[in-house]
């Protein structure tokens, strides 16, 4: 895995809002992680954890307060020329959470999808543009008839697929999916997730998949980062994080997920997490690699305990 190319490197990202005011918010506080080409990196956290902010900082909707964001080894903060910026915008795209707010209600579907095509001049003619739109609609499971309709005529799932088509229109390499399914009904969620997976395969896409729904994140992601109060708590492969959560917050989060299985549910016991107990002291904490590929936010003196826990799991496996 180490040989794979790091498409995105985030180094000590800080994103504060209302700096210097009484209501200063440290939405993202010293977050670092890498995403490899072709993988899906899941970022999981509860509301207010800063996960959406990370996504928006990465795609440069916000100007980071501090830290580096390297996309293909280039710092996105240092993209000077319009051309470079436009190139970046083509390569990285975003899928949004709210299928109702993410489409301009006053625009026809074809114009929404073609917006990127227009900006980046990807169509040779208007016929080409229409053809591209029709193709994109087909890719996301809709048909060309839908292109002249307005967003409000579509259901949530359909709208989300239109949003995906819009992102795909510029043929990006990297897509940030910001809770793309949380506003959808269960039966529709699967459609969208399947679509995302198909697209990843076909276009060799890399995803940053942001969600609070742990079961779906687990399902779709190769690796997962758990974020809490703007800080990354744990990073590991999705299997490892579910099977062997090291950080108590991760454990708590996992224990709270309801599962559609009555027997399991009858026995599930949520494990509470007390942030004050784990972060309350002023010890310096940072992400430490406990076992290869498995990072935990910890202070020096907490490390042995985590290592031991990891050992136990290894032992269990073998």
């Amino acid at each position, binding site marked *: 895995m180490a040989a794979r190319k790091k498409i995105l490197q985030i180094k000590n990202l800080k994103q504060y809002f209302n700096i210097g005011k009484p209501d200063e918010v440290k939405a993202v506080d010293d977050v670092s992680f890498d995403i490899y080409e072709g993988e899906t990196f899941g970022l999981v956290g*509860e*509301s207010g954890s800063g996960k959406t902010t990370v996504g928006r900082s990465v795609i440069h909707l916000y100007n980071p307060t501090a830290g580096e964001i390297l996309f293909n080894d280039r710092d996105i903060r240092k993209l000077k020329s319009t051309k470079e910026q436009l190139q970046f915008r083509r390569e990285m795209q975003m899928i949004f959470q709210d299928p109702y707010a993410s489409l301009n209600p006053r625009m026809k579907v074809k114009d929404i999808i073609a917006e990127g095509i227009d900006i980046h001049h990807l169509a040779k003619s208007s016929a080409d543009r229409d053809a591209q739109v029709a193709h994109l609609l087909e890719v996301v499971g809709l048909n060309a008839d839908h292109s002249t309709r307005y967003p409000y005529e*579509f*259901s*949530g*799932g*359909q709208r989300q697929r239109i949003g995906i088509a819009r992102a795909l229109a510029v043929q990006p390499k990297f897509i940030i999916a910001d809770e793309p399914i949380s506003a959808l*009904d*269960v*039966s*529709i*969620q*699967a*459609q969208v*997730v*399947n679509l995302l*997976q198909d697209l990843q395969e076909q276009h060799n896409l890399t995803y940053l998949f942001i969600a*609070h729904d*742990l*079961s*779906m994140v*687990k*399902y779709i992601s190769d690796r997962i980062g758990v974020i809490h109060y703007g800080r990354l708590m744990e990073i590991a492969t999705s299997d490892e994080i*579910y099977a062997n959560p090291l950080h108590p917050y991760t454990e*708590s*989060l*996992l*224990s*709270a*997920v*309801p*599962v*559609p*299985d*009555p*027997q*399991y*549910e*009858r*026995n*599930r016991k*949520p494990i*509470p*997490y007390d942030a004050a107990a784990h972060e309350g002291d002023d010890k310096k904490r940072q992400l430490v690699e406990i076992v290869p590929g498995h990072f935990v936010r910890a202070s020096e003196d907490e490390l042995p305990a985590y290592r031991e826990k990891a050992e136990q799991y290894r032992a269990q496996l073998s």
Partner: protein
Amino acid sequence: MDNILEVKDLKINFGTFAGDVQAVRGVSFNLRKGETLAIVGETGSGKSVTTKAIMGLLDSNAKIASGSIMFAGEDLLKANAHEMAAINGNNIAEIIQDPMTSLDPTMTIGKQVSEPLRIHKSMSKEKAIARTKEVLALVGIQNAEARMKDYPHQFSGGQRQRIVIAMALVNYPKILIADEPTTALDVTIQAQILDLMTELQQKIDTSIIFITHDLGVVAGMADRVAVMYAGKIIEVGTVDEIFYDPKHPYTWGLINSMPTLDTKAKRLYAIPGTPPDLLDPPKGDAFAPRNEYALKIDTEMAPPFFPITATHSAATWLLHPDAPQVTPPPEIVRRQEVYQEMVDKGLDQPNNPEVKLNTPATD
């Protein structure tokens, strides 16, 4: 078990600019004393509208086309506003989805929680305060006495939902309608609230209608489950029957499309397409267009309910004697196997803490 509430053939239309939306298209169910009935369905399936009808809280553009809602020998649909007011908050109470908007921002929570006491029990101020404090403490509001003077915005989302629950339960209602009470909450908070509700249900012996789209929550909370699709209940049964031996293809799809933490399948099972527009519901079975097991008759005629067990029935032509035998999706088959094992062991009793089962296997 006694039925505390019986809903029969409820049909509700909404007048809109585009025409009449048939939001509820003949719903019948009953609620038993002390049980938790979960109504599961997607957005627009009519589950909230049904409960609004029970409480007489439908919007003015709603028309009840037919049906009856029997509570304590009376048809609630025939009750006038004052009779409804006497029942609401006293015998039937409600919790809704968004704790951020469900409390009056300008009234102290003490006053809001004690309001049902004053309305229905004409309780003295001191007694009401004492009772309010008690109930607030019961739902886990710490330092309840002091906090009664606080306003809603001074509480976190989870705390607010606890207050809303306190408000609903303060009169020990016979029926509690919980309309997606945890959807807006984070999973960790959700877990706490669900625990609280289970705990309180036992304490005050109330029946709960639990509306949700989250099957995970249903699995943990419900005694019985009714699955709604396009304004109709399409399957009803005990929680085990629904989760381990579903009969309706929609229920299959619903259960199957949700990954568990253990799902390893390469692809999720997805119900294709989009729910029908209830302005113009399709002829026959509304699910047919999305149903890979659809039969010709599905496009002609809506299926009736076919009983499976005393507690379990489903509205699908697949249960008709003439219908071809179909194999459910693998995940359902697996669940049926688990269930068979449970039945064999006599473990299919809901809410039996003694019952333990091996963690569901993976495929």
